[in-house]
């Protein structure tokens, strides 16, 4: 290396190039906006496991409703509740996923967790709220959340809400924000959903 060290360094670092194959894979990722699972699946699993553990510790019921008949609103969502959940969505969720695919993901993780720790779900009622192309507020309304008087059973139970904006696991206090929440980002690529990312709100 001669005295012109800086210029030689500049030439070296300027010439450092990315692996073309890796770059091409990233381009594919961008096109599908479905990130490769290596860094995502563990986070998803951890997020779900954390949520499920929280459910167990709290003695909460995970609610799973999955029939179209249950989607029709049975109550009114108050303005304040709508605002709270709209905020939650705006803060972290803005991608789309089909309800069926989220249901598949959730089911898989619940089954996996159940196998690891069977007592966790023994005797626990599990419902799925599967909401395709509905707003979170509509989903809450469909569960009876926010009914006048606020004594519906749904209000005190955690609900796995699968909305057009993604899945939520919530424990609903009366008129409060979600206590436990798993919010995530998913994307559908053709018929196969791939995890885009996952985060935990708690």
């Amino acid at each position, binding site marked *: 290396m001669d005295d012109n060290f800086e210029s030689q360094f500049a030439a070296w670092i300027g010439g450092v190039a990315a692996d073309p194959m890796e770059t091409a894979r990233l381009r594919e990722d961008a096109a599908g906006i479905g990130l490769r699972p290596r*860094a995502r699946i563990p986070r998803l699993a951890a997020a779900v496991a954390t949520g499920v553990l929280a459910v167990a510790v709290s003695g909460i019921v995970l609610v799973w409703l999955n029939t179209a008949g249950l989607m029709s609103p049975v109550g009114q969502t108050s303005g304040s509740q709508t605002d709270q959940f709209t905020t939650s969505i705006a803060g972290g969720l803005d991608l789309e996923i089909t309800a069926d695919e989220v249901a598949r993901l959730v089911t898989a993780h619940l089954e996996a967790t159940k196998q690891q720790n069977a007592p966790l779900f023994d005797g626990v009622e599990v419902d799925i709220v599967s909401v395709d192309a509905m707003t979170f507020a509509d989903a809450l309304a469909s569960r009876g959340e926010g009914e006048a008087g606020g004594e519906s059973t749904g209000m005190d139970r955690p609900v796995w809400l699968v909305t057009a904006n993604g899945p939520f696991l919530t424990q609903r206090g009366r008129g409060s924000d979600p206590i436990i929440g798993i919010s995530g980002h998913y994307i559908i690529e053709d018929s196969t959903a791939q995890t885009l990312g996952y985060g935990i709100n708690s």
Partner: protein
Amino acid sequence: MERVDMSLRELIAGARSGSGEAFATLVEPYLGRALSAATLIVGSADEGADVVQESLESAWRGLPKSRHPEAFGMWFRRQVVRNAWKVARRRRATTSISDSWMDPIDHIEEGLSRRNLARAFSSLGDADRVLLTLRYHLAVPIAEAADLLGIPEGTVQSRVHHAIERLRAAYDAEERA
């Protein structure tokens, strides 16, 4: 120039409406440099790719809210650098740049110099690697680097100078080894 601007607007509009292909076309020109820069900073090609993935995710989420989509390239670059730096901070002292980064060795002396440069660079602290990557790999102007790092322009210049000095010392040590 206008056609380029229109194309950019169209791509951004397409991406905002949910088109993955439009998004991919939008980010494609930046991916190679983003990946190499991230790898330089974190010192691992795999983690560099993860950093770019994270940045793609941020870009996808942030695009609908972007107030200056025409500055997408610069914004994306900042995301990559910041995300890479976060990773580098977490995994300090485990950095090593793969020999595969080096160009084919045309003659031994040049090859050894490149290898020693790579090793010297990877031995630097994460802040030095970020700064040198910004200035020498991404050719980011002083003003933009100062803004990104949140420090005055004069400080950027000073830190670059000292980083080069440390790099030189590390390089000399490699040469003697």
